[in-house]
């Protein structure tokens, strides 16, 4: 790998203006991926500039990593090559917002938090609460395939993304879907691109349907001495007519980090967090039924948080990766996808696995069937990392048995010994993915090597 | 651009009563009928679906498809259960179309000689003539009672001839035929007369379902009806209509119009859904100019469940402890759009628990004489049906048509009791009227 020549950089500056090409080490440090720095970063201001940049990189045989605010650059495997970061954060305009139609078209570099502020003025929202909420961009959250706790009620972004515009690895601008809430015209490339980690195309515009902001909200926290009780409450809840926005089960190690010692969350207890939104009567109904369910499940306590205390606790849980970093100098987060009914068994297995390798562990179980295993070693020595790697490897194996698994976050060193995409031996769909990569990005310009199977 | 001919342009052989272009074109080929068609569900073939059959009829009508063996086969396989009519959003009168198609086959297609022979025997020589029906019934009764049936069943001869399953359909012939009741009047019981009805006795029913007919009359009497059984009535002609033998059907209709021309009764009541549907549609058999009389006649026809549910039961009912399920008779539900009336009557009997079975509204495979002509399909449907009956855990399966009863009885014999506890009572097959008769407080 060699640095792009001065001439090439000059041509890049011609495309976007010299102000928007960064080469100084300090600026570039923001764009590190797994500790690797690009030679330059470029900040396009329009979709057409993005296309020109890709065409330029293609001509110069350079590798690009698209990024928004850089919060999830460590997802996936380290790029095989990394020459220039394409920072899309200047693409931050709302193209069209039709509150009366509950539809929105927004540029990919827009920060979710800023967008939410606009939506809030019209009493609307997007259910996009997820880690790095304050910084993350629309394009970033889509490309990373992130989803958050609100998925329980609203589904994942794939369920409310109506269409998208993007630039392919060939530097062509294209689109799919549309701006209307119902549309089956043509192939749904926008869904294909979700979670593609910028390896197929760079999002430039995303179209969403928006949702009414619930007039009232409350967070209910039930605590349990044992996991079984927490699972029983989960089960009772999903089999009831109730419509919680979010349903999260948190292991004691994580629970005690959520809030300063509180009587309703004794240490050593599991916490079940149930976020509820809607009309006041709806929230009260949940309060009433939840009390009954919590009693039947032998909850140690059930408390209700509103307003500020709710927001505080909720945002802390939402930012659980940051909590992991607070606890451990070298945390790893493994995500296991399974059937909701298997969450308990898998949680037990994860704890046993971590215990066997003497790695402290915390768990976050999401009602829809996702288990986040937070491995929290108390040191970052080579010996600890070796134990961490062994634990991660076993968890990925277990995940494959129960569904699927991947590493969402880990020390960069770990990626030398562990494939973060998990066990793919029994899968036979990677061939198709490689061929699709060939179509979208024949010269391997975009995020080479970061995605599954070395794509 | 290919455009279909306007109606009548290719009119070669269509009689004035036949379907017009519009009747076919009303089918918007949306396919909503498919899953309601028993034969489509059985085989999954378009050719054996209502939509596919209509298309074939249309193409034959336009002279673009040969009226040949294959066409006849697909038309023959239709149960004429008319479940598709209930499902159709466009109001296609499928029953009329299939009957017209069969009439056309009857006129223009030469079936193999054996088939021709038995069809002639059955539709022309036997059905229209009560005395011949009685003669055959006596022979049959001899076969059943003399020990011959047991001997033949044991001999394996039936299997050799390939008619073992059909033989199972042979119903026990009644001891006393119903013919003796023709011309009689039965007084209402228990107080004032609430209605005066004419009773339609049926043809084969008079030798196979005489007891059912008597039970029906008893129930009507108990509920304050004077029941007149006009002499001179004949077979309704349903089987002939379904088979496309329209001339015979028309003659029978003329006879019946005459037999029931006496005034002064509130309704013409039948306990056979198949007969009821045909009687209500007598007008279809006549040219437009001659339909008035048949129309007036039809307006008074009532299925007995329809009639009693409308009238309301007045007779006291005693408890009958029975878990039952109800099989809709196609010509009641789809042909006459009556589904709630029999259920209401069933539920009115104290102690009776009605458990609905899966696909109660789908044909049991009886379909007139379908179980004789298309035995394999009929039994496939019956086997499935019996599975659903069993699943309800019912002690009895009720229905509202003698033809269905024959089929269901064979079903109980062949399939339903297999998986049951041998100690348990066999599943009974009852007409709704028989249940009401059983629940009748003994005088």
């Amino acid at each position, binding site marked *: 790998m060699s640095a792009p020549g001065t001439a090439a950089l000059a041509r890049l500056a011609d495309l976007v203006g010299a102000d928007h090409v960064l080469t100084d080490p300090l600026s570039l440090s923001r764009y590190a991926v797994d500790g690797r720095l690009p030679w330059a970063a470029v900040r396009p201001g329009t979709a057409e500039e993005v296309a020109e940049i890709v065409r330029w990189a293609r001509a110069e045989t350079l590798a690009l990593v698209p990024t928004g605010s850089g919060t999830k650059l460590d997802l996936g495997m380290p790029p095989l090559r990394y020459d220039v970061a394409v920072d899309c954060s200047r693409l931050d305009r709302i193209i069209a917002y039709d509150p009366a139609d509950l539809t929105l078209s927004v540029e990919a570099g827009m920060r979710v938090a800023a967008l939410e502020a606009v939506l809030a003025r019209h009493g609307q929202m997007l259910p996009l609460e997820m880690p790095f909420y304050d910084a993350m961009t629309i394009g970033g959250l889509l490309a990373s395939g992130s989803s958050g706790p609100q998925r329980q009620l609203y589904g994942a972004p794939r369920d409310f993304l109506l269409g998208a515009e993007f630039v392919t690895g060939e530097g062509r601008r*294209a689109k799919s879907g549309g701006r209307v809430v119902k*549309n*089956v015209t*043509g192939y749904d490339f926008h869904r294909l691109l979700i979670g593609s980690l910028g390896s197929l195309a760079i999002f430039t515009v995303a179209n969403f349907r928006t949702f009414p902001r619930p007039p009232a909200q409350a967070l209910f926290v039930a605590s349990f001495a044992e996991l079984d009780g927490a699972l029983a409450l989960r089960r009772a809840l999903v089999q009831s007519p109730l419509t919680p926005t979010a349903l999260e089960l948190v292991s004691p190690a994580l629970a005690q980090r959520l809030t300063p010692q509180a009587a309703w969350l004794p240490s050593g207890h599991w916490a079940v967090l149930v976020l509820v939104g809607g009309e006041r009567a709806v929230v009260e109904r949940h309060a009433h039924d939840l009390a009954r369910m919590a009693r039947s499940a032998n909850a140690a306590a059930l408390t209700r948080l509103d307003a500020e205390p709710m927001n505080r606790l909720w945002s802390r849980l939402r930012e659980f990766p940051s909590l992991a970093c607070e606890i451990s100098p070298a945390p790893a987060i493994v995500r296991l*996808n399974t059937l909701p009914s298997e969450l308990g068994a898998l949680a037990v297995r994860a704890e046993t696995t971590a215990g066997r390798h003497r790695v402290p562990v915390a768990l976050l179980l999401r009602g829809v069937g996702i288990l986040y295993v937070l491995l929290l070693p108390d040191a970052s020595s080579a010996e600890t990392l070796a134990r961490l790697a062994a634990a991660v490897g076993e968890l990925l194996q277990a995940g494959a048995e129960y569904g699927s698994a991947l590493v969402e976050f880990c020390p960069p060193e770990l990626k030398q010994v562990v494939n973060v995409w998990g066990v793919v031996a029994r899968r036979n769909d990677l061939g*198709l993915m490689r061929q699709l990569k060939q179509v979208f990005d024949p010269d391997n310009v975009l995020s080479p090597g970061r995605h599954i199977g070395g794509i | 651009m290919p455009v279909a001919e306007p109606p009548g342009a290719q009119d070669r052989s269509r009689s004035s009563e036949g379907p017009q272009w519009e009747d076919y074109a009303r089918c918007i080929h949306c396919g909503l009928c498919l899953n309601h068609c028993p034969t489509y569900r059985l085989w999954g073939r378009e050719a054996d679906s209502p939509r596919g059959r209509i298309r074939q009829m249309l193409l034959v009508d336009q002279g673009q498809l040969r009226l040949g063996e294959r066409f006849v086969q697909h038309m023959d396989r239709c149960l004429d259960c008319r479940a598709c009519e209930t499902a159709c959003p466009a109001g296609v009168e499928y029953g009329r179309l299939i009957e017209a198609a069969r009439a056309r086959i009857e006129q223009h297609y030469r079936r193999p000689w054996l088939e021709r022979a038995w069809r002639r025997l059955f539709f022309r020589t036997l059905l229209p003539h009560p005395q011949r029906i009685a003669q055959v019934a006596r022979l049959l009764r001899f076969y059943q009672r003399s020990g011959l049936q047991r001997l033949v069943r044991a001999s394996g001869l039936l299997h050799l001839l390939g008619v073992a399953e059909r033989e199972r359909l042979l119903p026990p012939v009644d001891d006393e035929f119903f013919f003796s009741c023709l011309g009689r009047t039965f007084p209402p019981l228990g107080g004032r007369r609430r209605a005066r009805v004419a009773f339609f006795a049926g043809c084969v029913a008079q030798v196979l379902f005489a007891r059912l007919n008597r039970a029906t009359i008893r129930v009507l009497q108990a509920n304050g009806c004077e029941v007149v059984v006009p002499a001179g009535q004949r077979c309704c002609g349903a089987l002939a209509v379904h088979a496309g033998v329209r001339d015979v059907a028309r003659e029978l209709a003329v006879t019946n119009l005459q037999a029931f021309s006496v005034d002064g009764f509130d309704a013409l009541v039948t306990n056979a859904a198949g007969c009821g549907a045909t009687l209500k549609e007598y007008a279809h058999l006549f040219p437009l100019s001659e339909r008035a009389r048949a129309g007036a006649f039809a307006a008074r026809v009532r299925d007995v469940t329809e009639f009693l549910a409308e009238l309301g039961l007045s007779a006291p009912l005693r408890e009958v402890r029975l878990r039952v399920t109800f099989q809709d008779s196609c010509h009641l539900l789809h042909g006459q759009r009556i589904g709630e009336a029999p259920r209401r009557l069933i539920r009115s009997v104290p102690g009776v628990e009605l458990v609905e079975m899966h696909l109660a509204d789908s044909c049991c495979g009886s379909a007139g004489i379908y179980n004789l002509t298309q035995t394999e399909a009929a039994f496939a449907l019956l086997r499935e049906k019996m599975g659903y009956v069993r699943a309800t855990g019912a002690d009895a399966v009720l229905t509202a048509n003698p033809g269905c009863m024959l089929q269901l009885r064979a079903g109980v014999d062949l399939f339903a009791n297999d998986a049951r506890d041998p100690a348990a009572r066999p599943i009974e097959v009852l007409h709704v009227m028989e249940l009401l008769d059983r629940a009748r407080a003994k005088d």
Partner: protein
Amino acid sequence: MYSRKAAPRRLERRTLRDLQRLLGPENVLHEPEDVLLYEYDGSVEVARPDCVVFPQTTEQVAGLVQIANRDRVPVVGRGAGTGLSGGALAREGGIVVVFSRMNRILEIDLENQRAVVQPGVVNLDLTKAVEHAGLYFAPDPSSQKACTIGGNVAENAGGPHTLAYGVTTNHVLGLELVLMDGSVVRVGGRTPDTPGYDLTGLLVGSEGTLALVTEITVRLLRAPEAVKTLLAVFDRVDDATATVVEITARAITPAACEMLDGWTLRAVEDFIHAGFPLDAAAVLLIELEGLTEAVEVQAAQVFDVCTRCRAREVRLARDETERQRLWAGRKNAFGAVGRLSPSYYTQDGVIPRTKLPETLHRIEQIGATYGFQIGNVFHAGDGNLHPIILFDSRDPDQFARAVAASTAIMEHCLSVGGALTGEHGVGMEKSELMPRMFTDDDLELMRRVRDVFNPLGLLNPGKILPLGKGCGEIRVQPLPLRSSLPA
């Protein structure tokens, strides 16, 4: 405008023989009088296959695809043939693969609200199989009592209640695919977010052009605790559309919000007796579902909006029977309208909901211009129009005008930021209109992605992507048609 393909190429003897060996001769139809029953579906299109096969296993599907691939014969999947865009028709002849014998529900997991089904399972049959546990399969196209889940997946089918619950793609978790080379691939799964590209998302709605689907894992929903169905009656169409705009703007989310204009509801009422007032200019059928408390509040809000928008009457269905009757009026509307005219043509377009009032005016204008009565019965809540043009297909002039009127409506939809199809699919009906919504680059990308799965163009050829030789008009073929089969 429309030209039937020159006599479809005859299958090679070898192809037929191998198909018969693989599937058994009884599962291979090839006589003209048999295959002509597969030249139509629920749409106005016509195209005749050379051969129709009925596989029963994934292995058989893989085997027959290999034969087709070897002999370069097109392959088109078909469920119940209820589609409205010609998706299941063999536009270039070849083999139609009917999934009616692959109709088993393979697994029901009540605990996790999942089911695994074969593609031939009828949509409503799945709901019937799980409703005892309070669950149901959400997509509810009007054809749900006949259409298959395989067909739903191919077309990404919708329905009235997709307003609240989303279309098919929102309920499919995983698929088993047979690719054109005969290989069997599993994408997605029963668990969420299988790592890698979302191939399931790409495949759903690809109209059978990428693969044949042989197994589907779907999500089941829990039936709501409370349902309220309202009928709002209006004296002016503008008031009805204004109501829809206002309901949307206030972000009230009904489970369904359907509109019937006066002309349509009169046609329906004659036949269905749903209880629609005959003198109304339009009615809205609004259904609210969910928690009792939520439904109460929403019902009050909807009442308020309707009243403000000058509804003459807002009627609440008293019981399930009345509710079913109202819905029967809606779900049978097309059939009922069909009784009024020898032929009719239903369009499917989408517009932003704020454009509803002006769009209905435009449709009326178009009707006047071309001399047709155009009825409107549609999913108002999500802006999914279904204008019905009544005409007589026997009259070539009327036929041509119907096509032109239909194209004009689609052009209007696109001009206000809408889409060509909301739930029927592009199929062969609208493939030539695709360039009006997508650029050459968009379409080129679609073509190349299709080629990944379907390099020889044998899978459902002539669908979605424009052939590039039409004049861009919607092609329709009136029925009943004259067949080329010798008498």
